[in-house]
């Protein structure tokens, strides 16, 4: 573990607000074509933001909701920092709501010829709707300057606590798409080998053509029969299941959570689409509801461990990642974390331990870096 030495930055995850529109624009504009589910369009972003605000406010969830979260540094005299949004992430309650959600499912078939004495194991990609109606983690963006801090851990995993806290709003299975191999112009080897044959245009052109509409119709143009991987050019074969460099960080978090990473890939760029039963995910299975207590100055806080702590509220959802001590009944938080959560003493919060020792974490880089870490 490469952990910050002292006075670590503190972060707070909260629902996005209308005032976060510039931050969303910033992240959308910085993402290459095909990398993000955020439209690079102010009106579309504002609409998405409004949908998110409505989702957090409504008691009548239909499954159409998207929930967007903003991550910011906690500003206080003790920690310093600014309240700038340094990351966003989201959840779509149901993938492909009112439509179908397409994926390629990896399958292997064994062909055998007894006469020739040959068996071959053939990799195929099956166009499928398996993940329709599962919940979907979306729109993970973090400023590159914070990529190797604990910020992305909170940004990604706190969503799981939100889902665990409000299970009636989500499916029992969760998926997440990760960007696959593409060059700076958006050219994807898998798209060139498969999709282009059916569209006659490159992927960025398709993105422009669809104009942010549902992509399910794209799959209508794709072959319903399996794609036999050995028939594809080597470059395309190699791209199946591979990550775009900007997706490595969020993917590593999902991998640590226990998502299945081998079964599905994106139909456009071949990036892995992970999925798992929500109850099986590390943060969810570890989480428990206990009372929050604020440590006094005089308190000694032994047996410190890193905990993701989330309030149970819907519209006022808050989550922090902090060192704290827990018992079976309560979690003792320092003043900064306690205040950031906005809970009352004794109020029940959802807590899950994070194994920071297993993570590659270091202090915040002093300057902004040009590339954001992103997943869809």
């Amino acid at each position, binding site marked *: 573990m490469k952990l910050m030495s002292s006075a670590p930055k503190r972060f707070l995850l909260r629902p996005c607000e209308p005032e976060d529109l510039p931050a969303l624009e910033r992240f959308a504009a910085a993402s290459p074509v095909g990398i993000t589910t955020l439209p690079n369009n102010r009106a579309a972003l504002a609409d998405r933001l409004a949908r998110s605000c409505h989702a957090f406010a409504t008691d009548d969830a239909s499954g159409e909701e998207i929930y967007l979260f903003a991550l910011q540094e906690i500003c206080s005299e003790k920690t310093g920092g600014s309240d700038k949004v340094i990351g966003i992430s989201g959840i779509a309650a149901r993938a492909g709501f009112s439509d179908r959600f397409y994926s390629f499912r990896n399958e292997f078939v064994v*062909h*055998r*010829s*007894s*006469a*020739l004495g*040959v068996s*071959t194991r*053939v990799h*195929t990609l099956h166009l499928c709707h398996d993940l329709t109606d599962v919940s979907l983690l979306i729109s993970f963006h973090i400023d590159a300057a914070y990529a190797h801090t604990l910020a992305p851990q909170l940004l990604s995993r706190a969503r799981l606590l939100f889902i665990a806290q409000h299970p009636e709003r989500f499916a029992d299975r969760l998926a997440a798409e990760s960007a696959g191999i593409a060059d700076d112009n958006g050219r994807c080897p898998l798209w060139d*080998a*498969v999709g282009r*044959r*059916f*569209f*006659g245009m490159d992927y960025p052109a398709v993105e422009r*053509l*669809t104009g942010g509409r549902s992509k399910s*119709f*794209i799959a*209508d*143009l*794709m*072959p319903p*029969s*399996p*794609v*036999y991987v*050995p*028939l*594809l050019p080597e470059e395309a074969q190699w791209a199946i299941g591979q990550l775009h460099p900007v997706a490595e960080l969020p993917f590593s978090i999902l991998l640590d959570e226990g998502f299945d990473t081998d079964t599905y890939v994106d139909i456009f760029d071949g990036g892995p689409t992970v999925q798992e039963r929500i109850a099986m995910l590390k943060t969810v299975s570890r989480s428990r509801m206990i009372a929050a207590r604020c440590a006094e100055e005089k308190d000694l806080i032994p047996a410190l461990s890193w905990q993701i702590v989330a309030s149970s509220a819907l519209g006022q959802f808050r989550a922090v990642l902090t060192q704290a001590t827990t018992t079976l009944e309560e979690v003792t938080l320092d003043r900064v974390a306690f205040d950031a959560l906005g809970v009352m003493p004794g109020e029940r919060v959802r807590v899950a331990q994070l194994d920071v020792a297993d993570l590659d974490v270091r202090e915040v880089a002093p300057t902004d870096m040009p590339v954001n870490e992103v997943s869809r």
Partner: protein
Amino acid sequence: MNMGVTMNAVWQVRLAKSEDIAALSAFLPPATLELSDPSEHQADDQWLVAVPMAAALQSTAMGCIRVRRNIGLDQPRYWYHVGCVVHAAPDLGLFHRQRTLLIGNDYTGCTELTDIATHDRKLDISQRRMLTRLLVRSALLLLHRDHLLPFSEANPSLPAPTNKIIAGLPGLSDDLGIAPFWQGLGRHFYAGDIRLAQARFGALWLTHVAALLPRHPLVASLLNESAQAAIGCVHADAAVLQDALTELGLRAGEHVNLYDAGPVFEGDLELLRRVSGVYPRTLVVQADFEASGWCLLVKGAGSDADASNAQLCLIPARVNFQGELLISDESAQRLGLQAGDQVLAEEFKP
């Protein structure tokens, strides 16, 4: 080298005999003769040889054709069906028609004309043309004759055949026999030595390799360009055979060979009979006979036919106003024909 074979000669087309094997080995691939004996005839697998009736040639077989009926009933046979699928997104103005390949046994039960070969070293191109036409037409005439018979009399041991006749044409391959279609598709699923497989199993190697090939429809555009371009193309060396089949009314269907994507020509027997102008005739033998052309004939027609007789001949002949077939006394004696015999005949222009 031309061995005195002339286009205007009497030819006999008959079942192969053991004494023909030496002649056949001059122009059939060794593996073919190792895996099958043309002189061993079965009701559903017959080899015909074309023999010029000239003393100088000592009745040497100059060409052969194999007629296989009810194919695929003992060992499955496979072909790719070349189909079409349309992918459309009307609201985006996108419409794409794609060729598809689906492996299947669609010609099971059909009759196949195969192993069509001529002694090319002894024949010039026009002779090869004539002989190839003769072989194909003879095979079809025999099938017409049997088709006109009550089926149980023609082949009592066989299930009723379909009327479809097929003939596979070789597709594109390089000088080493390597097919671009195989390079783009099959080799990804069978990396073994195909020559060894061919030598071991003959044409059945494709049956065994089919077990390793994709079972689901393949979109042809996912293959490399060379493989796509080869689908349905005929090797230049098969132009003579292609012309002969086309002349008789067979046409490329929607199926291709698994190895080289050569097309399978097909035709309905009843339609082919009309194209060929095959009719039952009564034979008239004349001493002072003057022929107006040539006829290919087989003895027996209708209830008079003998299914076991697979002897055909190409001789000078003429049809009179009564629709009878006139031949010379010399031809009748040489071929064992008699006035009043019922024959099935068609005009043949050498």
